[in-house]
């Protein structure tokens, strides 16, 4: 754990990268879920 942490502390850009990656996965998951809900609603309203 420690050498990994030291490496991150020195090359802070990778911290940014991990954060951005997490944000992106979060956005993707949210939108994916949203699409599922919209599709369900469309089917319900079109009967």
């Amino acid at each position, binding site marked *: 754990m420690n050498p990994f942490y030291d490496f991150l502390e020195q090359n802070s*850009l*990778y911290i*940014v*990268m991990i954060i*951005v*990656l997490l944000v*992106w996965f979060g956005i*993707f998951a949210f*939108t*994916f879920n*949203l*699409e599922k809900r*919209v599709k369900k*609603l*469309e089917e319900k*309203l079109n009967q």
Partner: protein
Amino acid sequence: MRAFWKYLLLILMTLVILGGLIPPIVAYPKNFFEFPLIPGLEDKARIIFFHVPTAWLTVLAYLIAMFYGIRYLKKKNIYDDMKSVSAAALGLVFCILATVTGSVWAKFTWGSFWHWDPRETSIFILLLIYGAYFALRSALDSEEKRARLSAIYSIIAFLTTPFFIFIMPRLMIGLHPGSLEIDPATGQIRASANPVIKFQMAANMRVVFFLSLTAFTILYFWFWNLTHRILKLEYNSQKEI
């Protein structure tokens, strides 16, 4: 088939984030995984992968909004108007993102948050046009009037934008990179006459850059598609009531 695009997007964007942030920037890149160094920019050059696509998207969004606006004028199909608004709403979001990211970057690179550089000015004008578009829409009650008049305004506002793209090189030599020299000795900045930045990028940077454009464009179309479908659902369910 639809699912393919989503997973492609997931992979592409992940690659872009990794590809944009991992490769180190060195003075003399030896292999494919190193980006060339531009003195003065160093790591900040990475913005190209994230800021330029937002600017490109906001312009694309405007074109889509105008296209569906014209379609509405021809066919009077309210769904076309919905597509137009949703395109414009997303365009506004990306315009704000482009302006803000550009401004923050400018603070660290050129000294202050805003310079009235030609390209900065034109993104600001686009922001005003989007603002005017939505102000107009909120001032109109009748659905038909709203659709019709906002489509017309989008056309008229669009006609003035070429002037900005061509006034730019005339007005001043801007700060924005018109051509990025990889040679560290030169400092020449030439304003480009095209909205698309024509510059020499290293081949590997170009790959990531175009992947980024593609990924953001797919993202935009996904959001746009969802938004206008939701608008349609809201509209239809209200009609039933």
